[in-house]
């Protein structure tokens, strides 16, 4: 029986494949998926919600209503009455420890996992 030989391109594909798999592990496994979010207005916790249930929530702050959307295990600021819209531009969050904050309206979202990342948030 003839010996089974890999061709040059085969080695290339195998190496690139391994690199791809390693890259995928490094980027997609780097942090825990958050299970719930904590919504704060001012210094108070307004709600602690599970990421597994899709919902829209309104949070009333000094400037108006910030809308928070949870969908498919991710959360974002859907809209906010602030002028800069930095909070909305944060986009979707789903890793434990991530936060999105609307400073003008004093609304913040923090994604929680098993460990708490920040001891407290103050304005």
């Amino acid at each position: 029986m003839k010996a089974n030989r890999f061709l040059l391109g085969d080695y290339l594909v195998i190496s690139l494949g391994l690199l791809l798999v390693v890259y995928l592990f490094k980027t997609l496994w780097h942090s825990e998926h958050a299970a719930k979010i904590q919504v704060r207005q001012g210094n108070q916790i307004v709600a602690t919600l599970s990421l597994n249930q899709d919902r829209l929530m309104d949070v009333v702050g000094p400037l108006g209503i910030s809308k928070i959307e949870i969908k498919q295990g991710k959360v974002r600021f859907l809209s906010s009455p602030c002028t800069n819209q930095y909070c909305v531009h944060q986009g979707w969050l789903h890793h434990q420890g991530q936060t999105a904050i609307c400073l003008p309206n004093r609304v913040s979202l923090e994604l929680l996992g098993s460990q708490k990342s920040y001891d407290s948030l103050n304005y």
Partner: protein
Amino acid sequence: MRHLQIHTTQDDHRVAKLAALAIGLHLIEAVVPSPLPGVKPGIANIVTLYILYRFDFVTAAWVSFLRVFASSLLFGNFLSPTFVLSLSGAMMSLVALYFLQHLPRRYFGPVSLSILAAFAHMLAQLLLVRFWLIPHAGVAYLVPIFMLAALFFGLINGVVTNILLKRA
């Protein structure tokens, strides 16, 4: 009234025999337990790849689709999400092979095609899962595992195809 006659050609017979082989392999593979749903050796793909080298792309496509349809009928999951997953994986890997078959044979053998087609297969299935079956961002955590399985089994299937091609 004359009876209806279907005239079959040599090609038809060949496709039928190869499809039967692929279906058989797929059924046998169902006996092997899998650590995670979706992680399978995919040995029926060896037949597809072998046909691509020994015959042509069209025959390989025929056998591939016949295997998907016939197996799902035999398993009783025709038109179920399992069937859709199987079909989308087969289609994507065939599309990949359609282009990959033109790679220079001097440098790229069945192993390369097998691995890359396996990646295409897995990608199609992951997309289907993420956007239809389990629309949750957590699916991202499955991606590396499935791609590793695709690399591993793609490599093995490619080696087996290589051995078969060299024997006959």
